[in-house]
C-alpha cells in the first residue's frame, strides 16, 4: 500500500515538473514567437498542430463512445460512461494547450469567438470544440450529481454526441477545402478524421483502462471483462474501417501522376515514412488490426494494451505524415527561397509543447480518477 502511495507521489512530481517545464515553454513562445519552432513559410503547421488534431479527434472519439450508453441508451456500458466523458474533457483541454501554443497566445483563442467568419472551417472548428467542452463539463457535473437521465441531462448527452460527430468533419474540412494543396483536397479528409478520431478515442480508453486497473489493482477489470471484450470488438471494427480508408488513399496516391502526390514516394522524415514505406501505417494500424483479428489477443489484457498503444502512436504519426506531406514543397514564388522538398524535425520547443499538453491531460486524468468517482454508474 505504501509502495503504491510512493509511486503515486512520484507520478505527481513527474507531472508537476512536466507542467512547470511546459509553463516555461509557453512563456518563452509568447515572448520570442514562433521562431523557436522548426517551421518556415513552407512548413507552416508542425508538431503542435498535429498534437492538437490528434488530441481533439481523440476527445471526439471518446465522446462518441460515451454516447453509446448516454445517447443510444445501451445501459450495460453505463459503468464506462462517466470515465469516458471525463477523459474526453481532459483530452480536449490537452488539445487546447497545444493549439494555444501553436497560435502563440491564449487571448488569440478567445478572439476567434468574437470576430466570426462563418465561411471559415477554422472558426467552426474552434466554436464547436469550445461549445463541446462546455457541454461536456455540464454533462459531467450532472452525472457527478447523480442526474444521468433527466431531460436536461439527456439533452446534454445528445448535443455533445452531435458536436463530437461534426467537429472531426470540420477538422477534416480545414484541409479538405484547400484547393491549392491537392493531397488534402476533398471530402475524404473529413471522413478520415472522423474514423481516426473514433479509432484513437477507443484506443485511448482501452489503454487507459488496462493501465489504470493494473496500477490500482482493483478487480473491476475482471468483473467487466465481457464488456471490455465487446469494446475491443468495436475497436477492431473501427480499425478495419481505417485500414480500408488507408488502402483507398494509398491506391489513389500510388496511381496518381500529380506531382504533389509523388511527394509521398520521396518524402522522408521522422514520422514513420522511410524508403517509400509508411511504417507508421504498417506498424501503427495494419499490424494491430491483424492482431485484433486473433481472438486470444483480443481477449487478453496484454493484447488490448499493446494493440491500443500501437494504434495511439500510429494515429498521431499518421496525422503528422498527412499534415507534413501536403506542405513539403514550396508554393509559387517561395520556390525561389526554399529547396524543392523540405524535411522537418521538431525543435526542442515543439516537443515541449507536446509534453505540456500530455502532462496537463495526464494530471487531469490522475486527479479525476482520485477525486471524482469515475467508475460510478446509476443504480
Amino acid at each position, binding site marked *: 500500500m505504501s509502495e503504491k502511495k510512493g509511486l503515486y507521489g512520484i507520478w505527481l512530481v513527474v507531472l508537476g515538473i512536466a507542467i512547470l517545464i511546459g509553463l516555461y515553454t509557453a512563456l518563452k513562445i509568447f515572448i520570442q*514567437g514562433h521562431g523557436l519552432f522548426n517551421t518556415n*513559410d513552407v512548413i507552416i503547421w508542425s508538431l503542435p498542430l498535429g498534437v492538437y488534431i490528434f488530441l481533439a479527434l481523440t476527445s471526439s472519439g471518446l465522446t462518441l463512445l460515451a454516447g453509446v450508453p448516454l445517447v443510444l441508451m445501451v445501459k450495460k456500458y453505463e459503468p464506462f460512461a462517466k470515465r469516458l466523458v471525463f477523459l474526453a474533457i481532459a483530452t480536449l483541454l490537452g488539445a487546447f494547450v497545444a493549439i494555444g501554443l501553436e497560435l502563440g497566445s491564449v487571448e488569440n483563442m478567445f478572439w476567434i469567438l468574437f470576430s466570426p467568419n462563418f465561411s471559415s472551417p477554422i472558426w467552426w472548428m474552434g466554436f464547436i470544440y469550445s461549445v463541446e467542452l462546455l457541454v461536456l463539463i455540464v454533462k459531467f457535473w450532472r452525472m457527478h450529481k447523480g442526474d444521468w437521465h433527466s431531460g436536461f441531462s439527456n439533452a446534454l448527452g445528445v448535443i455533445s454526441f452531435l458536436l463530437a460527430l461534426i467537429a472531426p468533419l470540420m477538422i477534416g474540412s480545414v484541409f479538405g477545402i484547400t484547393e*491549392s494543396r491537392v493531397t488534402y483536397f476533398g471530402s475524404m479528409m473529413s471522413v478520415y478524421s472522423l474514423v481516426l478520431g473514433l479509432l484513437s478515442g477507443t484506443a485511448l480508453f482501452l489503454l487507459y483502462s488496462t493501465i489504470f486497473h493494473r496500477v490500482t489493482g482493483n478487480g473491476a477489470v475482471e468483473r467487466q471483462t465481457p464488456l471490455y471484450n465487446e469494446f475491443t470488438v468495436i475497436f477492431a471494427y473501427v480499425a478495419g474501417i481505417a485500414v480500408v480508408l488507408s488502402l483507398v488513399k494509398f491506391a489513389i496516391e500510388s496511381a496518381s501522376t500529380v506531382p504533389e502526390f509523388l511527394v509521398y514516394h520521396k518524402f522522408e522524415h521522422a514520422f514513420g515514412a522511410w524508403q517509400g514505406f509508411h511504417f507508421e501505417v504498417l506498424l501503427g494500424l495494419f499490424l494491430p488490426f491483424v492482431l485484433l483479428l486473433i481472438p486470444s489477443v483480443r481477449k487478453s489484457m496484454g493484447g488490448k494494451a499493446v494493440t491500443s498503444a500501437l494504434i495511439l502512436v500510429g494515429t498521431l504519426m499518421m496525422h503528422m505524415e498527412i499534415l507534413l506531406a501536403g506542405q513539403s514543397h514550396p508554393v509559387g514564388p517561395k520556390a525561389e527561397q526554399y529547396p524543392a522538398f523540405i524535411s522537418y524535425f521538431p525543435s526542442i520547443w515543439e516537443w515541449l509543447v507536446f509534453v505540456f499538453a500530455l502532462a496537463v491531460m495526464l494530471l487531469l486524468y490522475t486527479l479525476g480518477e482520485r477525486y471524482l468517482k469515475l467508475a460510478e454508474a446509476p443504480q
Partner: protein
Amino acid sequence: MPRYAMVIDLQRCVGCGACSIACRNENNVPEGIYWSNKITETVGTFPNVRYHYIPTLCNHCEYAPCVRGCPTKAMHKLDNGITMHDPKKCIGCKYCEFNCPYGVIYFNWKEPHQFWKNNKVLFKGGTSSPREEVEKVGAEKTPYFNPERGATLPANRPKGVVEKCTFCDHRVSKGLLPTCVEACPANARIFGDIKDPDSDVAKLLGKFRPFRLREQLGTNPHIFYIRDFNPAQYRPTKGGI
C-alpha cells in the same frame, strides 16, 4: 466603385527587380518576406535553354481562399477589390498562408527587422552600428522606414501575424499608383480599374490574350500576364524522323 487589377507585360519586363526593391522600401517589408516576388524557370537542355521570369504579388482574387478561410475576418476584401489584412484581428493561425494557392502570404515568425537592433560596428570609430543608423535618422525600426505605410496598416507589423501585398492601398486611396508600378523602368506594370472600358488595363486585356496563375482553381485572380519576351528566330522547318 472601381475594381483594381494589374497587367504585367512580360515582353517589357526585364527582370531587374526594381518593383521588389521599391515595394520593400514603401511597405517596410522585413527580411525573409516578399510582397513582390518572382517565379524563375529555366527550360530545355544545354545548349538549347531559355530562362523565364514571372513577377508575382498578391493576386487580389475575387474568390480569395485566404479571405474565405480566415477565422476572424482579418483577411478581408475592400469594395475596390483589394484583398486587405488587419493585423489587429489576425490571430496568427496562418490558415491564409496555408490556403493561398500563389504562395504570396508570409508570416512574421520573429520580431521583424531584428538586424537593425544590432549594436555591432564594422570599424570602430569609422562606421555606425545598425541601431545607430536607425537612431540618427530618427526612424522606426529601419533607417528606410516609411511612415506613410502606416495610414491603413501598422507601418511595421508585429511578430505573430501574416502580411502580404495590399496593392499599395494607402497610395491608391490618394490617387497614386502602387509603388511597384511607379518604380518599373520599363512600364511593364499597368494598373487600373478593370471595370472601366477606357482604362489602359481594360484596353490591354482586350488586345492581348492574357493568362493568370493557377486559373483552373476558380479564384479569379486580378493579376493578368500578357505577351512574352522572346526575340529568338528559327529557320522554318517541318521537323524530321
